[in-house]
Each structure stands twice: as structure tokens, then as C-alpha cells.
């Protein structure tokens, strides 16, 4: 009898254990963190869709974050036109822009001041009409240029863009917006009378590969491109100034500046002040040629240079 009762007790216990086990809910799910981190509302930084912009975006983002700001980086938006529209639509708080490009393509100013300082003032005045402003411009400038292979230059005796007119047909690798820009086919036709250009759409920086492969005669490049460091390409001179100097200045909404105060602009200007042409070329090369990520490169630069705001 005692054994029977003991057996029953074990059985009942087992049954209860299984029942309770089956009742228990499956484990908790991963918790998501809240999006309001310390540092106020996030500063939304946009970038256009090429390497230098990616690096600039990371530089500003990391510098601001190290000062305790909350930053959202919106990479790879598109051309200046699209990005500035996004800014105007309130989807962004700031993005790095090229001053002369801003004047010619966004403000539609075709006759641009020769002096960079004047161009900067004009661009800043334009932005301030729309509730934006420009922060300090960088030491480096990133002018557009047309590059050719040295052999090609030698063969056709090319020195300036005007020399291209001698060729019957010039194939050109450039991004899509190049077709409709003054700092593009519009200006080249207008100033140099180049109506022999055949435009091949090319996402930056694939134009170098095209050029190397001989698929195109010339390509639109930026003077800060890392590929230009080793003298593998010849830049054609631009005596009629289709391509402007193009220092970089962050376009920023004044509302954002008001929200975050002087500390924000100081941090951004401190980064901008460190960006020389050599530094920019080195960083572009690290990404485009060495295959490193913009984030690593920017972090390394900030580590080595320590912006003082």
C-alpha cells in the first residue's frame, strides 16, 4: 500500500511538473532600445552619392557624436539637386556641399565670383533666404575637371579643354546630372563650343576603370580624387572657368543651429578646418584604392588630428 501511494505521489508530481512546464511562456524577446539617446533630437546629416561625401559624412558624424550629439547619417542620397530638395523638404538638417556647385546648380548663378570668399558669401546669402545657412568652408577645394590618359593627351596634343574641340567625337564618362549642369555639358558647350561630346552615364568612381580600359576618351573627375595622386592621369586645364573652385561648406538648417547652439557649429567647423586637399586626397585613396570603409578612414583621421572646437 505504501509503495502504491508513493508511486501515485511521484506520478502526480510528474504530471504537475509537465503541466506547469507547458504553461510557461517562451523566453522573452530581445529588447529594443529607445531612440531618444542623450544629446537632444538627432542631427540628420545627409551625403551625396560618392566617396568624398561618404567620408565627409562620417567625419562630421563621428566628431559630433564624440561631443555627445545624437546623429543620424543618411548616406548616398543622390545629386546636389536631389539632396538640396530633401533639405528643403525637411528630411535633413545638414549636408556638405560644394560652394560653387551650389551657386551654379541650386541657385542657378551662371556667372560665379572668381574669388572663393565671394562665392562663399553669395552661396551663404542664397541659403539664408530659405532658412538655411553655410558653416565655415574647408581649406581643400574639390573642383570638377576632365581627365585623360597621358598617352591619349600626347597622341592628340591635349593640354586644355579647348583642345578637345579638335577631335571629331569625344566620349565622356560622367554622372547623369553632368548632362544638365552648367558645371557639366551645358557649360562645356557654352564656353568651349564642345558639341562633339558623347556622354556615357557613369557612377562615380567607376569612370577611372572606364578610362583605364580605353572605353572612354575622357572622364569627369574631382581634383581631390585619390586616383590622381600617382600621375596616372592628365587633367585638362579650364581657362574659361566652367569648373569652379568648389570649397566644401556644410549647408545647415538655422533651426537646427538654434536647437543645438554654438557647440554644434563649433564642432563642425573644427572638423572642416582640418580638411586640406592632401588630407582629402589621402582619405579618398584609402577608400577607393585600398578598399577601406569611409567609417574607418574618418575615425582614423579624427584620431590622428583631434579637431579642437
Amino acid at each position: 500500500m505504501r509503495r502504491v501511494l508513493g508511486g501515485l505521489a511521484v506520478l502526480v508530481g510528474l504530471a504537475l511538473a509537465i503541466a506547469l512546464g507547458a504553461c510557461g511562456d517562451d523566453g522573452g524577446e530581445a529588447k529594443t532600445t529607445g531612440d531618444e539617446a542623450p544629446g537632444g533630437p538627432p542631427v540628420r546629416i545627409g551625403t551625396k552619392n560618392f566617396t568624398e561625401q561618404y567620408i565627409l559624412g562620417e567625419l562630421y558624424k563621428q566628431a559630433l557624436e564624440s561631443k555627445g550629439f545624437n546623429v543620424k547619417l543618411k548616406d548616398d542620397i543622390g545629386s546636389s539637386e536631389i539632396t538640396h530638395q530633401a533639405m528643403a523638404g525637411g528630411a535633413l538638417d545638414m549636408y556638405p556641399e560644394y560652394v560653387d556647385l551650389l551657386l551654379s546648380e541650386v541657385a542657378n548663378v551662371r556667372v560665379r565670383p572668381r574669388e572663393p570668399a565671394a562665392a562663399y558669401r553669395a552661396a551663404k546669402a542664397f541659403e539664408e533666404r530659405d532658412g538655411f545657412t553655410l558653416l565655415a568652408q574647408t581649406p581643400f577645394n574639390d573642383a570638377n575637371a576632365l581627365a585623360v590618359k597621358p598617352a591619349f593627351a600626347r597622341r592628340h596634343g591635349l593640354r586644355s579643354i579647348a583642345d578637345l574641340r579638335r577631335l571629331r567625337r569625344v566620349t565622356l564618362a560622367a554622372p547623369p546630372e553632368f548632362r544638365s549642369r552648367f558645371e557639366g555639358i551645358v557649360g562645356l558647350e557654352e564656353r568651349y563650343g564642345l558639341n562633339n561630346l558623347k556622354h556615357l552615364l557613369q557612377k562615380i568612381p567607376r569612370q577611372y576603370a572606364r578610362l583605364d580600359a580605353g572605353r572612354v576618351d575622357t572622364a569627369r573627375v574631382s581634383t581631390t580624387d585619390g586616383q590622381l595622386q600617382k600621375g596616372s592621369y592628365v587633367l585638362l586645364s579650364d581657362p574659361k572657368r566652367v569648373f569652379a573652385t568648389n570649397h566644401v561648406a556644410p549647408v545647415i538648417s538655422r533651426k537646427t543651429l538654434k536647437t543645438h547652439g554654438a557647440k554644434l557649429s563649433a564642432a563642425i567647423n573644427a572638423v572642416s578646418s582640418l580638411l586640406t586637399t592632401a588630407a582629402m586626397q589621402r582619405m579618398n585613396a584609402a577608400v577607393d584604392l585600398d578598399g577601406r570603409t569611409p567609417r574607418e578612414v574618418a575615425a582614423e583621421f579624427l584620431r590622428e588630428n583631434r579637431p579642437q572646437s
Partner: protein
Amino acid sequence: MLRHKLRTRITAKVVALSTAAALLLGTALVFLIVAVTSQRDAARTAFRSQEALAAGGQLENSVITIENGLRGYVASGLKRLLDPVNEALSTYEAEQRRLQALVAIDPVQQARVRELEESIEDYLGLWARPVIGLASTDPADARSQFLSNPAGRARVETMRSQFDALYARERSFIRSREDRAESRSAYAIGFGLGGLALVLAVAVGFTLYLRRSVVQPVLTVAEASGRLASGQLSTRVPAAREDELGDLARSFNSMADSLQHSQDELELSNAELKRSNEELEQFASVTSHDLQAPLTTISMYAELLERRHGAEDPQDGPALVDGIRHATTQARALIRDLLEYARAGRGRLSLEQVSIERVVGQALEALAGAIEQSGAVVEVGPLPVVRADRANLCRVFQNLIGNAIKFTGEGTPEVSIDAKPDDGLWCFSVRDNGIGMAPEQSKRIFEPFQRLHGEDDYPGTGIGLAVCERIISQHGGTIWVSSVSGVGSVFHFTLPAVEALRGDDRDADGDSETRAHAGRGAELR
């Protein structure tokens, strides 16, 4: 020790088994409740997930509408193609809120919806709206951007894969809840059936156990009680158990012990009584018999004395001898009656169907002389047939009718004899118009040698009514008198009706009272 005792108690076992069965059933019940709850929960989850899927589909549809409208507008420049885009732009936020509410219980889905919302905001803010803006100022640039810039398409693809991940998790929710509900109901059914089978097994086992260890011992005790009741006082039951049944067995055994003890004592005192009774009877009959002889001798010598010396004193002699003779006759009558009284109620009754009318007839025949002498009128009513001893009953009627004639006053004696049934008995009455008696005397007259009158007024030894009382008692009846002094007496006595006096004619030796008890006992048994 106490623990051990408790465990062996039947009560403890019953409680333990009931608790175990209740726990089993309770477990099965818990499973059922869990299964039902879980199924209901699964149904709710499935419904909510379906709603979430529908809401997600609506939102995705809005996004696709925007992208398609955008494409059409940029390609054609037709403003009207923006109408569906604007409509979608006005509804998508509400759709997002609805989706967010529907996935609110799952943090992962919530996070996914938040990511999706961010993607949609990026798509709209960084692509769709800028492209629309650009198209209004520079349609050619917008067109080329749309064609060459993969950003917009990448954003749409990102959203699409986010939607797909959202849907997949909701669908897996539905499936897993259904699976869980199913497995739980399978558990519940299994446990319910198992529990039922176990309870059944416990019940059957318990029944067998009860039969073996409870019912059987109880039956043993019941059987032993029967044997004890039928007189086997040595009956005992095994009493080794430690539980309630052990207590019962021990109580039974001690009851049997004390019964046997009482019985032994009773038998002992009975034997003693019987022996002293027999001695007394022996003494009485020996004494009566032995007294007859000297009395006879005294009468003989008195006769001789009269014959030889009667002439010597003719004046006093015969009178003296007469005195001696009269006294001895009286002494012999006394001894005869004494013997009769001693024998009455002792001898074996020979019971038979007796017609009382005949018995009364015999008694009247025996009294014929006295009746004729007194000129008495005897009236006999209809009388029944009863089971009785004919000779003894005749003696009763003879004594009663004789008394009625003897104790008479001035007028002619009138005697009437009747009988009427009374609750299983026959009640007989012998009525006279004699001298009667005082109420306080009516008890005493049934005692031996109790006389109300002097020997000279009414001759007799005073033993007749005592003999009647003994005989009626021996038959299981009673006798009494109701009388008014100077008016007359009625003697009543009862006899059991024929059916009532059944089956105990073999045991006529004991006194009437013992017999009556035995009779009742036999009937109860």
C-alpha cells in the same frame, strides 16, 4: 509510532487515495484549462496577426502607389499622375499607426515597424519628395536622376524586404501559436485520458482492496455473530490487525467472552436451582407419603379402640374416637391437596386441541352430585377449541364451578360460563351469584391455604384456586377475579388462542414464565 499507526489506519488510506485521485483529476483539469486558454489565445493571435498582415499590405500598397506614380510623373510630366501619390501620402501615416498598434505586443515586430517607418520617411524625404520637387523645376534632370540613380530603387527594395520580414514573423506567429495550442490540447487530452484511466485503476484497486481487507473481515465478524446468537459461545474471530477492523474484532471477542461468562454463571445457578427444587419436591412427596401411613395407623387404632372399649364408656368414648377420626380425615385431605398443589404446574403438559365445551361438560359431570344437591343452575355459552392440557383444564373448571356452587348465599346458585376472544387470547369467565368478596381479598385468594371463611362455614383446604393459578400460568395465561361482596363473583382467565401457542409443547418442564420467554424468543428468532 503515531505515524505508523496513522498510515495503517483505513481512514488514512482512504484519505490518501482520495487525495491522489483528486490531484490526478486536478492535473488533467489544469491541462484542459491551459489548452483551452492557449487555443483561445492562438485564435486571438491569429486574428490579430491577420489584421497586422492586412495593415502591412495596405501600407506597402501605398508605398508602391507612390513609387509608381512618381515614375509615371517623372517620365511623362503629367501632373494628374501625382493624384494617387498625393492620396497615398495623405493616408500612409494612419496606416503606419494602425500597423504599429497591431504589433504592439511583440517588441521585435515593433522595432521592425519602427525601422520600416524610418525607411519610408527616408524614401519620402530623401527621394520621392525631392524628385517631385526637381521634376517641377528641371524635368530632364529629374528624369535622368530617376533613370541613373539607384538610390530610389534601393530604398524601395529595402522597404520591400522589411515588409517581407514583418510578414514572415507574423505568419510564423500564427503557425507557432497554432502548433503550441495543438500540442497543448494533445497534452490535455492525453492527461485527461491518462488521469481517467488512472482514477479508474485506483478505483478498481481500491474496491479490490476494500473487498479483501475490509469487507471480508466484516463478513467474518457477521458470521461469527450469527454463530454466537445460535448459541456457539466459544466463537472467536482473528484480531491481529492494528486498524479499525482490528478494534471491531477485539470488541467482538470481548463481548463473546463476557457472554460466555454470564452463560456459565447462569447455567451454574440454574443447576443449583434445579437441584434444590428436586430436593424440595422429593421432600414434599416423601413427607406426604410418609405422613399418610401414620395417619392410617392412627385411624385404624381409633377404630380398634372404639370396637374394644366403646362399651366401657358409652357416653364419651365414641365421641372421643370420632374426634380422632375426624382430625385424621382432615389431615389426610390436607396432605392430598398439598400433594396435588405440589404436582400442579410441575408435570409435563400434554397439549392437544381441546374443545372447552367438552372439558366443561366433563367438569359438570364430576360435579353432578353437588349441583343436584344445591339445585344450582349452570348456563354454558358457546366455547372455543384451544390447545391445552385436557386434564389440567378440566381441573380448573371443576375447581371454579365447584367454588361457585359452594360459596352460595340464600338463593339458588346460578352459574354461567362464557368465552370471548381478546387480542390473540381467549378470555373465559365463570360467573356466580354467590357471596362475593371484598376487593382487597381478591388477590389473596390465589395463594395456597388462604381461606376467607371458617372450615365450619365452607369446608375445604384453600388449595383449589392456587392450583388453578398454577395451571393457567403454565399454559401462558393469567387468572383474576372481579367481585362485589354479597352480589357475586366473576372468575376470568385467559388462554392463548390456538395459533399463538405453537411449537413449544416439548418444553413443558420449566415454569410458565421461563416458557413464555422462550416462546417469544423463538418467534423473534
